[in-house]
């Protein structure tokens, strides 16, 4: 038997927990975007050892489940002698993980810009960073935009696993409400709708941008990155 019914209080509790989901997603988006920009730049940099380093970083973060990365950051940090806050662990993990995906998205866009642009910039006496900043990235932005918005949907969904290290965001609030009300259909139905309300507009916008901008950006056989299991 349930202790309580699913009422306005419970709904309010879920809606209030939603702000932590949104905040975590924003942190992950900002952190991941910044790291991704650096990683993408390194991936196309002239120095080969740096390129390998960035490739290894991407391999690790795209080739292992993000949940394991999160556990490593949260429980593994005690190895270094301190107990992190779930927020710190989640922010670090989602930023690093997002950085790998964003890095690949940005690299794809950068590499789609014709070689002649690089050569022209070199002829003008531009060095690497200057070329990237003033010539390549301004042109690549229209190619980056649709998959970037699409990946934001993945970020919002992925924040749900932060509940598994005890961070009280929407998914964890849902299990808490379910425990006291035992009305899983109502509880998880409501929570699904909240997530849907956050994600669907982004999905629609990404689709709109894709139709408007992206034409033949991905090479044959290359798969778009905007999909995720979590």
């Amino acid at each position, binding site marked *: 038997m349930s202790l309580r019914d699913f009422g306005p209080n419970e709904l309010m509790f879920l809606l209030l927990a939603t702000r932590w989901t949104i905040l975590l997603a924003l942190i992950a988006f900002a952190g991941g975007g910044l790291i991704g920009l650096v990683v993408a730049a390194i991936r196309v940099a002239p120095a080969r050892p740096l390129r390998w380093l960035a490739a290894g970083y991407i*391999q*690790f973060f795209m*080739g*292992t*489940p*993000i*949940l*394991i*990365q999160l*556990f*490593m950051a949260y*429980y*593994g940090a*005690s*190895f*270094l*002698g301190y107990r992190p806050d779930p927020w710190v662990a989640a922010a670090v993990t989602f930023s690093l993980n997002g950085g790998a995906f964003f890095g690949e998205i940005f690299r794809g866009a950068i590499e789609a810009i014709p070689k002649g642009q690089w050569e022209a910039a070199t002829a003008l006496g531009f060095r690497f960073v200057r070329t990237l900043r003033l010539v390549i990235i301004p042109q690549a932005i229209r190619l980056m935009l649709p998959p970037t918005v699409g990946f934001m*949907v993945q970020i919002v*969904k*992925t924040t*749900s*696993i932060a*509940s*598994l290290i005890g961070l009280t965001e929407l*998914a964890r609030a*849902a*299990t808490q409400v*379910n425990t006291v009300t035992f009305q*899983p*259909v109502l509880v*998880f*139905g409501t*929570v*699904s709708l909240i*997530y*849907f309300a956050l*994600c*669907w507009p982004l*999905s629609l916008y990404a689709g709109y941008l894709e139709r408007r901008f992206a034409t033949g950006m991905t090479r044959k*056989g*290359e*798969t*778009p990155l905007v*999909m*995720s*299991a*979590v």
Partner: protein
Amino acid sequence: MQTALQFGPILVHLDLLLRGLEKTIQLAALSILFGTAIGVLGAVGRSFGPRFLSWPIACYVELIRNTPLLIQLYFVFFSLPLFGFKLSSNTAAVVALSIHLGAYATEILRAGIEAIPEGQIEAAKSLGLSRYRIIRHVVLVPAARAVYPSLSAQFILQIMGTSIVGAIAAEELTAVANNLVMQTFRSFEVYIIIAIIYFVLVQAASLLFAGIGKLMFRWKV
């Protein structure tokens, strides 16, 4: 503060790790099988089925793709028993994972189907091929061939996605890891080992899918 990484106390439990890996592979394989089946039905239903079918399929795809897998997992695990379906956590995991992949597979295959030129279907019609044979040979096989890279990328993500079903106490690799942490108190080492296992599994699966793709689409144009 611990001074050095010690993998010995964990590698003693190799049998547990292998059993977890086996469960992970099993969950991934079953859900990939069922999920792809749902995807084929969904894509064909949306492109060739009656109108009253295409709307619910579109809703299913959008709903699943815009909500977290974890919530879908909780929904299945906690709700279905109320309707009289007694599920073990492993069965619930397979159901949720299949429904999840089904939505992505539907969308990927539909994109492939829509890329088939209308003229191909008209040509097949004028040759007198039956509706079933047109859908199977003229539409599905070329579409599957075109979207196979995207589909196998999604399968890889599905393998990594199985890691979260430990949240409903299904005994796969991640759940085994958490148990080992409680037994040995060597969290960092445990998760390093688990990460390596997943990494190898993912690389092996990539090779396998590439091989399957080469075999399957070798002779057909």
